[in-house]
């Protein structure tokens, strides 16, 4: 059994040399590391976490006497401390994931005044302790890009699979508490995807139906997630690079369907110049073939919708890239949405700023749609009134929407989704 060896510095922090909050955070990291079976910690200067005091479901559990006291709320919800800790500035560079609302569109999102106030206080508290309010599930789209081999402690499965696989950074999927503790200590357990052996492939997936569109990449990711669960798939048969949008959708789908945190595409991703290097001698646990029949099987998983009258179209899960925002603007140029259908596009705030300058936002809003930032339909639980049937171009969102928001949900291409927003009818399908 692994015994955790701590450095003198780590012991010093654990013993309280840097105050009670860092001592508590170090204790949490050590208990978490022991629970994993890790034998040591590793330094990190890249942390992404959910600071979730304002999210529906979480805020209801905050005891009456500490509501409004963000330091006490943070101590409880992010550090699991019953006692209010005096929270010092974070040690590691730390970035916040999705917030509960778009601060500019909270009324369109039907967010209550109470939620808006909590969201604002949580945000101000984040700034106070040095947590950078990116408020996106895709920090890697807005300048938070680790280097190859960098040890990170990120939450948000779709972001972790991206930086592990596409960039070659090293992160496990953290939770709110382990991310907050890493932020305060600059430490995370050396375990799993931090270790070379944890990153090696376990399953060989031979691709015969090469994905070409965003929908294809989403379906492939979802199918692989269903089959390999949380193992490490190695894809062969893809002989040209994808692009950031494709990898973003592919990874998000694989992570939400099965919990994949790392994949290799032989010849494309940085740790897989060859299949031999991707596996590095790890025992093969399974061999799979993905052809046209498997693509149809993947599409058949998304059969929650029967009615074709669409009330709500959501694009931007994970948050849309500038290219995706531009595409939506192009599809909507000069058009008007159907009177009974809403289209909301979610993107990081920085990308929204560029979209504003380019005129994409104006084009989108002139059509009657909305470009939103900082939030997410499923996670923030924001959506238009009276939605029964939704459509999305994201396999991940189509996975969560029926479960979380109880919408019948169609999955299709971006073009099909925008068409549904304009006509009010779902006319999509797998071509």
């Amino acid at each position, binding site marked *: 059994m692994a015994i955790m060896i701590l450095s003198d510095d780590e012991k010093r922090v654990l013993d309280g040399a840097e105050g009670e909050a860092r001592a508590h955070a170090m204790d949490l990291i050590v208990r978490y590391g022991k*629970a994993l*079976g890790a034998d040591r910690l590793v330094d990190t200067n890249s942390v992404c976490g959910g600071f*979730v005091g304002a999210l529906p479901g979480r805020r209801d559990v905050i005891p009456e006497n500490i509501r409004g006291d963000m330091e006490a709320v943070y101590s409880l919800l992010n550090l699991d401390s019953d006692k209010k800790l005096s929270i010092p500035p974070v040690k590691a560079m730390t970035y916040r994931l999705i917030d509960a609302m778009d601060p500019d569109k909270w009324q369109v999102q039907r967010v209550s005044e109470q939620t808006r106030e909590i969201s604002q206080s949580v945000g101000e508290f984040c700034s106070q302790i040095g947590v950078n309010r990116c408020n996106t599930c895709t920090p890697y789209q807005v300048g938070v890009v680790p280097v190859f081999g960098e040890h990170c402690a990120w939450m948000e499965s779709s972001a972790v699979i991206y930086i592990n696989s596409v960039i070659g950074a090293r992160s496990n999927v953290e*939770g*709110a508490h*382990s991310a907050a503790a890493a932020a305060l200590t600059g430490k995370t357990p050396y375990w799993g995807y931090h270790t070379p052996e944890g990153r090696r492939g376990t399953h060989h997936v031979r691709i015969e139906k090469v994905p070409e569109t965003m929908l294809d990449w989403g379906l492939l990711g979802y199918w692989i997630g269903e089959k390999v669960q949380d193992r490490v798939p190695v894809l062969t048969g893809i002989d040209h690079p994808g692009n950031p949008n494709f990898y973003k959708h592919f990874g998000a789908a694989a992570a939400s369907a099965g*919990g994949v945190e790392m994949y290799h595409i032989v010849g494309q991703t940085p740790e897989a110049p060859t299949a031999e290097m991707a596996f590095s001698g790890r025992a093969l646990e399974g061999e799979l073939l993905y052809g046209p029949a498997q693509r149809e099987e993947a599409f058949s998983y998304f059969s929650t919708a029967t009615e074709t009258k669409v009330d709500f179209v959501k694009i931007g899960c994970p948050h849309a890239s500038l290219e995706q925002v531009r595409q939506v603007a192009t599809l909507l140029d000069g058009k008007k949405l159907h009177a009974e259908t809403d289209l909301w596009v979610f993107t990081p705030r920085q990308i929204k700023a560029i979209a504003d300058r380019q005129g994409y936002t104006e084009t989108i809003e002139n059509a009657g749609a909305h470009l939103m930032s900082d939030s997410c339909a499923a996670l923030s639980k924001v959506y238009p009134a009276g939605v029964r049937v939704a459509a999305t171009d994201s396999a991940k969102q189509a996975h969560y929407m029926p479960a979380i928001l109880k919408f019948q949900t169609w999955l299709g291409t971006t073009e099909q989704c925008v068409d549904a927003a304009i006509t009010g009818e779902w006319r999509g399908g797998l071509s």
Partner: protein
Amino acid sequence: MTKLVLKGRPVVDGVAEGEALVTRDTISGFGGIDNKTGEIIEVRHELRGQSFAGKVLVFPGAKGSSGWASHFQTARLNKAAPIAMIFKHTTTKMALGAVIVRAPAVTGLDKDPIEVIKTGDWVRVDGNTGVVEVTPAAERP
């Protein structure tokens, strides 16, 4: 008495005993549980509609969103968490979740807990030593 004794790796300290709730399916936090009642809500889950509140939860492990520990912390604060956990697969979600639930937890048992423990059995989990004692439902005092 035919008490079955299993030995594994301690994950979270403490000792607790109670009735087992056993499943072959992994459990999701976000979209998987009602954190007010401890009920499993995932549509295709074999325990859908049953609650783990106050039970010894025996399951393969955690899946789904990285908010797993947060959902289980909420369940704990709502007094709807399991009183002990026995799981098979160690992941970051599972390990952090076990720490945050603050209930004794054990993994890596020398027999498959999902095979040898049945729902309704009386189970004592020692998270200090990794020892699990199982008394079959029929022989419960």
